[in-house]
């Protein structure tokens, strides 16, 4: 199994480790619900080094990415990040990714751990077929990455940098410290404010020492605590964010996943545009209408639905649960589900077939949770 550069950190913090997409990762340190609440109320640090980091550099980097990604990227400025999908020819989703514009001819892409090798093959195939001049470099093993998320995070980061707290959402900055380069973006996957930081793998211990000066990760009452993948999953569910293998997949139409903002349907009309892979299939699907779409479900009672349980209306199956949990913030079971488009209207009464029990459910708009807006200082 692959280990991240933070492995010793996890062991020191008595993490319970599991196999995640071939990586030995912490599922939890103290408890999933406790860690979830820590992030919502204060802050948490996640090792996300297992995610793939791929650099595109060269004269045609922009054009190659326009072809690969569903979202328009050409108008991105240096220092900007954008969430996008990578589709297959049939309009299914190969992965969801975050694209960083480093320079005119240089981009960085963060991809899901489980899809890294598949995507690298795909990128290489498309590059070879198009004869674009681009070097594609997988930097995953050479680098580490953490997400620091929660309402107390930006203030703490202010102890290290005056610039980072001024970053807008989906912007990043490159900090050249004496002997290493850090990429710090105001992004995340929890529904909270915070940053994600990429660093050289061999400098992880040094970065953690630096962080320790302002953030005591060993203090059980600390403002920022280590958080495992278990809470990362319940946090992203509350925030209504899709996950590959659940809401996103090669067989799930990109337009059904609730991320239309990441699909630029007229991208090829643009002067510097490029038809992306899957665009024709998505146009066709748009014309014909989508049979099913992603919706939130609020579930009655205390029982948790599970992924793959059928969603019912009467005796008719009208959908399937894609993700579910007992929401620690709402203190009730929630689910995300692919449901017949006509039944996604918020308020629609549905049921989840949990085997021997039927769970009452109501369609609801995503997300389940939005971070409260910070009040400007009076």
């Amino acid at each position, binding site marked *: 199994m692959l280990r991240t550069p933070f492995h010793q950190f996890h062991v020191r913090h008595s993490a*319970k480790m599991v196999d995640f997409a071939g990586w030995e990762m912490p*599922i*939890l340190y103290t*408890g*999933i*619900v*406790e860690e979830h609440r820590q992030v919502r109320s204060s802050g948490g640090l996640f090792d996300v080094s297992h995610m793939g980091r791929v650099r595109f550099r060269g004269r045609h980097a922009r054009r190659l990415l326009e072809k690969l990604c569903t979202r328009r990227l050409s108008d991105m400025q240096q220092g900007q990040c954008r969430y996008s999908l990578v589709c297959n020819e049939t309009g299914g989703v190969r992965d969801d990714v975050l694209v960083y514009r480093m320079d005119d001819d240089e981009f960085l892409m963060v991809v899901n751990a489980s899809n890294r090798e598949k995507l690298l093959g795909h990128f290489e195939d498309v590059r070879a077929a198009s004869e674009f001049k681009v070097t594609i470099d997988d930097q995953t093993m050479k680098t580490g990455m953490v997400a620091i998320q929660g309402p107390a995070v930006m203030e703490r980061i202010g102890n290290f940098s005056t610039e980072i707290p001024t970053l807008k959402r989906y912007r990043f900055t490159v900090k050249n410290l004496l002997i290493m380069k850090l990429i710090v973006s105001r992004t995340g996957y929890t529904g909270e404010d915070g940053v994600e930081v990429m660093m050289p793998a061999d400098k992880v211990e040094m970065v953690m020492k630096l962080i320790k000066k302002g953030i005591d990760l060993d203090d059980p009452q600390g403002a920022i605590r280590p958080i495992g993948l*278990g809470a990362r999953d*319940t946090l992203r569910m509350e925030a209504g964010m899709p996950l590959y293998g659940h809401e996103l997949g090669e067989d799930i139409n990109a337009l059904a996943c609730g991320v239309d903002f990441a699909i630029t349907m007229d991208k090829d009309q643009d002067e510097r545009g490029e038809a992306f892979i899957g665009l024709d299939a998505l146009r066709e699907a748009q014309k014909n209408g989508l049979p099913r779409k992603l919706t939130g479900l609020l579930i009655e009672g*205390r*029982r*948790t639905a*599970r992924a793959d349980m059928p969603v019912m209306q009467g005796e008719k199956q009208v959908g399937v649960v894609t993700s579910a*949990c*007992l929401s620690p913030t709402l203190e009730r079971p929630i689910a995300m589900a692919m449901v017949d488009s006509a039944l996604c209207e918020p308020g629609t009464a549905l049921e989840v077939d949990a085997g021997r029990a039927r769970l009452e459910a109501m369609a609801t708009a995503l997300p389940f949770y939005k971070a409260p807006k910070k009040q400007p200082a009076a």
Partner: protein
Amino acid sequence: MSSPADRKYSDSHEWHKLSGDIVTLGVSKFAVDELTDITYVEMKPVGTVVEPGGEVGEVESVKATSEIYSSVGGKIIEVNPKVQEDPSILNRDAYEEGWLVRIQVEDTSRLDKLMDHEAYDKAHGAC
């Protein structure tokens, strides 16, 4: 931490503690730790007769739903109302406060086939 010596353990991680002809049944700490935060407990009602190896209820956690089995047959005479009210008791105290059901047993010999705490701990890496 070793498991309590005063009870017997099944392969499916239930503990059975015999007192007279009553078996108190719960889930081992090892299993609770594997399940992570327990979110829901539903046991069969008092009066239910279970066969040896039969199901006595379900426990749900953040991660999964698990059926709970009794290695002994008998009649459920008591269900712990507190854990149904507050399932997190199982995470805090799987062996005392976190008991699930009490079963009146006719034949206690089936308990002999179960693991003692040493065998259970050996099988599940407790130190």
